[in-house]
Structure formats: structure tokens, C-alpha cells
């Protein structure tokens, strides 16, 4: 048996705790039966969500963070357990007590479901309930591992935020299930169609959504595994993240038919729309990852050293996900610009717009890196987010109020006259931010040496 899972069994599934769970659940069902206020299946479902999803997400979130807090994480990192063993042991070991209670609730639910809805619906229900638990717990574990990499402290509030990440993921799974379930009634805005257009095909909505749910759950688990590898000092390399980006690009690009319903987009070619969807997806991942990943100045200096030394394999082996995402955004955007140039020579404004989008993306990523080089309270992502909020919302609002609409091109992508004005402004800002950030990274190396001396 997986040693980490077994250790958790020793700690979590003691006879006393198991007895306590059985007694409490039995009392709850007994009380519900006595009062007649709740159906057993409704109560079982409520208790399942409480025990497996909400409480289980917390236990998953604390499974690594708790080890760090209790100073046992280093000894675990020094074990010879593989990243997979450690991940599965933590994910299902730390939540085994929740699954024990959840199994009792699930048994009640399935007995009720079998009696009322038949075997097939009961099996599908069982798959959904197990899946929503795994989604919530694995997303919480992933959020906590990302936070560990960022060397954040582990207060109760922060653990709560990791738990919330799991609950949001579970909510997504719940929504998908409700949308896919013909009997679902809890979500008022169900899909208006039984079919989903994707890559020119009309696919059964239920099948498509459930397969999507399974795939995204798998990617979440892959994410946990890769974060665990980093914690165990193993190198990840760029290929799995690149595969994820390719998958996401293809997945999102398939929804082009939804865009053509918009009259403004009706005359755009399918290829251009698909490239635009993929580029937007990659840009979104660049923002998300540059915010989430630890922007370690020492790592950046080390990457710079590898680049200067021509050791591309080492650079790629340690490159962060936001860098790969940025590269994917630029690549697909260039493909889009070329495609527009060939298919719509009259749409120069669209090419300029894409170039300006890339410029602002480069500037924004640079701002996140730059803020890691500042001393004291200015250092960190919060300062970067405030600056971006000012650049995208506050200053444009003031300029707009003053009637200086032409100046807005300095702050976010838009069509301008002359056509390349916005793009030039964006790239000029990006260049300035990049030069300052790289300069400060080099400067911090000197000051680090000076601090030792």
C-alpha cells in the first residue's frame, strides 16, 4: 500500500472517529425520519456535499500546507516516494475520513435512486457524486500547491482561499451536471439546446459536457502531479504544459460557431475566428499564470545565465508556464496576423489591433516581473494588480471624463488613426517596462552579493 496513504489511514480512520461518523450520520437520518421534514435522499445529498465537497476540499487544501506548518514536509520531501505516490497518498489519504462519511451518504442516495430512477440513472448519479468530490478536492490541493510554490504563509484565511478554489471547481462540475441532466432543475439558466456545435459538428450536449468534465478533472490531477514534482525538486520541462495549451487551444477554437452568431463577426472566416479564440485563450493563461507563479528573481537571473550561455535545454527545462503561454500567444497571434494579411488585405486595422494587444500583454507581464524587484512593501503581485487597475480603469476613466478620448489608445487596445498608433504606444511601454525589469533583475544580483559582503 502507498505509505503516504497508509500513514493517513492511521491518523484519520481510527475506530473512535469511524464510530463517531456512523453515530452522527445515523442520528441525522433518524431525526429526519422522525420529523418528516427532509427526504432521506435530500438529506443524504446535503450531507454528502458538506462532508465530501466542503470539508473534503479543506482537508485536501491542508494536506501539504499542514505538513509545512508542522515542520514535517522536509522529511516527506526527502523520502523516496514518487510525485505520483505522494499526490495520490495526500489527495485520497487526507480525505479518507470524508470519503468514509460520504460513502454512507452515497449508499442512501443510490438506494433511493435505484428504487425511483432505475439502474442507469443511479450509476450516472454515482459517477457524478464521486467526480464532484474529486474535482473539489483536487482543485483545492492544486491551489495549495501553487501557493506553496509562491512561499506564501499558511494562515487559516489562506487555507480557506484554497478551499474556495476547490468549491468553485465543484460548482463548475455541478453546473455542467445540471446542464447535462434532463431532470436537473436547480440551475435556472440551463443550456437552451440539446446539441453543442464544436469544430463544425453538432454534438450531444450531455455527452460532450460529461467528457469535458472528465478531461478537465484529469488535467487538474496532472496539475497536482506536476506541482508535486516541483516540490520534490524534480524538473518538469515545458512539454506537458505545452500539451495542455495545445489541448486548450483546440478545445476553445472549436466553439467558433458561437461567435458567428454575432453580426459583427459574421463575415469573419472560420480559420481567423479559431486562431483568435486560441490566441485569446493563451493570453488568458499568460495572465493567470504570471499572477499565480512565483516570480523568483533568482530563477530569472539563472534563466538569463542559461540563455546567455546557449543552454537552451536547461532554459526550457526550468521555463515557467506563463513564459510558455506567452510564447504560444505570440505564435498564434502572428499566424492570425499573417492569415488576415492573406485573406483580408483591407483589414489592416485588425492586424494593428492584434499587435497592440500583444504589446499590452508584454507590458503587463513585465509589470508583474518588475514589481518583484522592488524593495519592501512595493514588492509583490498586489502592487502590480493595483497599477494595472489604474492603467486599465482609473486613468482611462479620468481621460474619458476630460474628453481626451484619443489618449485612451495609450492605455488599452483599440482602433486608432493613424492605424499603428496604439500598437506603437503599447510596444513602447512594453519596451520601457522590459528594460527596467531586466535592469533591476541584474541590479538585484549585485545587491545580493553586496548584502553578503
Amino acid at each position, binding site marked *: 500500500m502507498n505509505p503516504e496513504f497508509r500513514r493517513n489511514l492511521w491518523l484519520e480512520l481510527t475506530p473512535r472517529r469511524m464510530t463517531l461518523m456512523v453515530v452522527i450520520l445515523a442520528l441525522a437520518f433518524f431525526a429526519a425520519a422522525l420529523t418528516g421534514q427532509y427526504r432521506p435522499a435530500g438529506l443524504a445529498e446535503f450531507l454528502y456535499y458538506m462532508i465530501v465537497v466542503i470539508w473534503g476540499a479543506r482537508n485536501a487544501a491542508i494536506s501539504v500546507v499542514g505538513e509545512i506548518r508542522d515542520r514535517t514536509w522536509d522529511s516527506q520531501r526527502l523520502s*523516496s*516516494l514518487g510525485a505520483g505516490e505522494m499526490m495520490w497518498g495526500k489527495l485520497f489519504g487526507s480525505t479518507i475520513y470524508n470519503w468514509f462519511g460520504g460513502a454512507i451518504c452515497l449508499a442512501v442516495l443510490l438506494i433511493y435512486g435505484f428504487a425511483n430512477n432505475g439502474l442507469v440513472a443511479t450509476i450516472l448519479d454515482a459517477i457524478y457524486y464521486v467526480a464532484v468530490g474529486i474535482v473539489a478536492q483536487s482543485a483545492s490541493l492544486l491551489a495549495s500547491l501553487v501557493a506553496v510554490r509562491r512561499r506564501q504563509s499558511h494562515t487559516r484565511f489562506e487555507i480557506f482561499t484554497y478551499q474556495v478554489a476547490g468549491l468553485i471547481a465543484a460548482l463548475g462540475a455541478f453546473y455542467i451536471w445540471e446542464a447535462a441532466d434532463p431532470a436537473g432543475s436547480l440551475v435556472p439558466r440551463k443550456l437552451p439546446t440539446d446539441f453543442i456545435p464544436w469544430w463544425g459538428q453538432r454534438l450531444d450536449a450531455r455527452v460532450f459536457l460529461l467528457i469535458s468534465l472528465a478531461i478537465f478533472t484529469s488535467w487538474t490531477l496532472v496539475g497536482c502531479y506536476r506541482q508535486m514534482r516541483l516540490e520534490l*525538486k524534480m524538473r518538469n520541462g515545458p512539454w506537458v504544459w505545452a500539451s495542455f495549451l495545445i489541448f486548450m487551444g483546440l478545445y476553445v477554437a472549436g466553439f467558433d460557431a458561437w461567435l458567428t452568431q454575432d453580426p459583427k463577426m459574421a463575415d469573419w472566416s472560420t480559420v481567423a475566428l479559431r486562431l483568435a479564440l486560441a490566441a485569446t485563450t493563451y493570453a488568458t493563461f499568460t495572465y493567470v499564470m504570471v499572477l499565480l507563479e512565483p516570480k523568483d528573481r533568482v530563477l530569472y537571473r539563472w534563466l538569463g545565465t542559461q540563455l546567455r550561455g546557449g543552454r537552451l535545454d536547461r532554459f526550457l527545462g526550468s521555463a515557467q508556464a506563463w513564459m510558455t503561454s506567452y510564447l504560444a500567444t505570440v505564435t498564434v497571434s502572428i499566424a492570425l496576423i499573417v492569415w488576415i494579411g492573406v485573406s483580408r488585405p483591407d483589414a489592416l486595422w485588425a492586424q494593428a489591433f492584434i499587435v497592440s494587444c500583444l504589446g499590452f500583454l508584454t507590458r503587463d507581464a513585465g509589470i508583474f516581473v518588475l514589481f518583484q524587484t522592488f524593495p519592501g512593501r512595493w514588492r509583490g503581485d498586489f502592487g502590480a494588480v493595483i497599477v494595472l487597475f489604474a492603467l486599465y480603469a482609473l486613468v482611462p476613466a479620468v481621460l474619458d471624463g476630460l474628453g481626451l478620448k484619443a489618449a485612451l489608445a495609450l492605455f488599452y487596445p483599440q482602433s486608432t488613426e493613424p492605424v499603428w498608433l496604439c500598437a506603437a504606444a503599447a510596444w513602447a511601454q512594453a519596451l520601457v517596462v522590459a528594460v527596467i525589469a531586466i535592469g533591476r533583475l541584474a541590479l538585484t544580483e549585485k545587491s545580493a552579493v553586496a548584502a*553578503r559582503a
Partner: protein
Amino acid sequence: MIEVRDLVYEYPTKRALEGVSLSVAAQTITALVGPNGAGKTTLLRCLAALESPYTGAVMIDGLDTREAPRQIHERLGYLPDFYGLYDELMVRRCLTYAARSHGIAPALAGPAVERAAKRVGLLDRLESKAGELSRGLRQRLAIAQSIVHEPKVLLLDEPAAGLDPQARRDLSALLVALREGGMTLVVSSHILAELEDYCSEMIIIDNGRVVGGKPIKVREVERARYLIELATARSDLGDFLKGAGIDVLEADEHHALIHFTANPGARAKLIRDLVTAGFEVASFGGSSKALEDAYFKEVHKEGGA
């Protein structure tokens, strides 16, 4: 067994280690000493492949910590200065988990647990909960967890901190036994006097560098030192001792500090010779703190340079 070449390690705002190079032979105990914040713990964490060097290389048993951290973890035991235990688990289960998570097969885990518990004197506590142990016993359990898989290299960060004198003596004996059993040990400590009991080499870390650039052979500094005091001044005391082939460290007309064998018979003969030569010997006593003196000598030399 351990090779460190030009190791540089950086924290975001500080370079913690600068060009550290050292070599630790197999089956030795090396002391890592230095003031607080000197970089001892960072160096140990780099040796344990818990931190990756900025530049330079750390090789453990021929493996690079950057290239093969998990293989190194299989060969290594590490006791951090601040460690935690699973307080709710019994000692036997703590050790079983440590054994199994280090790849020991289920059938072999039981004997490995018994062996580790016996080595640290915890055989009679196997069924106690870790949370119920005293500080000294917790330290023993932590060490047992580190050695249950019979690592080739054992790194200990301040293992004697907070232990009573008897527990420290037991720890010294345990470390010597582990070395004799084939392990290579690196021990970080502030308590220099105790290191003399079991260390073969001392590496002084200060300000992120190895002071003096190389380890000090403890056997060369731990030769017994004796202070001779005369009741009546004699300016030829130093010359007399040197003439007798004795290593004189310092001498004036009242005192002489010498390196001399710890053999009681030889000491008795020297006293006899001094008295026979007309020296009025008021006292002849051992001067300890050899390692401490060597430490301060090196640190001051570095500071002066």
C-alpha cells in the same frame, strides 16, 4: 562521498553562499560550525538536495543534486534544526512510515524499525505516542527516522540543541557508532567542545564562505594541550621544553603552553624532568578548548585579512 564545487546559493535579496568548495570523505564525521546566519543551514539544505544551487555543483555519492535529487534522497538522512513529528502516531508507526517511504519493502520494514529504535535506545518506547515523548526522546525518534533506511550520508543540523548533558553524551556515542557502521556524517553545531569528541574534520562557515578555504583536520588540533606554571620565574623554560622535543605554543618565564601526548606516563616523566632540571613546577594542567581555539584563530585570521 560529498563534493561541493564553487557553490553559490542566493535568496531573493541575499547571496547566502559564495563559492563554497569542500570535500567530505566517506565514513567520517565533519563538523559544520560558524556564527548564526553564516549559511550553515543553507549549505546543509543544498547538500540534502532540498535547495538547488544558483551556480556550482553538489555531488553526493557521485550524484549531482540538480540532476538526481530523488536518488540522492534515497541515500540520505537529514535532521533539520526545527523538525516535526506525527504526535498522534505511535513510535513504531512513525518509524514504519519512515522506513516504507524510503523504499524499504513491507517485509523488511519491521526489522529496520527495531534496529533503528535499538540504535537510539527507543526499543521500550515503540508503543508510545510520539507526542508523549520528552524532548530528548523526541530527538532520538527524529534521528531514528533519519537513519531507519541506513543512509550513506547523514546530515544533522544542531542535533544537540536543547539536550541535557547525558543526552548529549549519548548522542555523541550514537554518532560515533553510526560512523563506525559505515555512514558519513555532517553535523552542524554551536557546541564546539562536544564536537571534539567525535568529529574528524571541522568546516568553518562565515558570511557564506568556508573560512580559510578548506576544512580543518580535528586530529591536528585536538592534541592535548597543557599549561605549565612555575612558582619561580625561569627565562629558559621555553628553550628547555623545545630542547626536549616538545611542541611549545607559547612560553614566558612563568608559563608555557605545550602540545603533548595524553599518555599519563609521558606526562609524569616530563614533570620529573622539569623538577630534576630545577624548575619549580607550581601546576601542570590540561588546557581544553582546542577546537574552540582553532575556530577563533581561523575566524580572526579571516577577519584580519
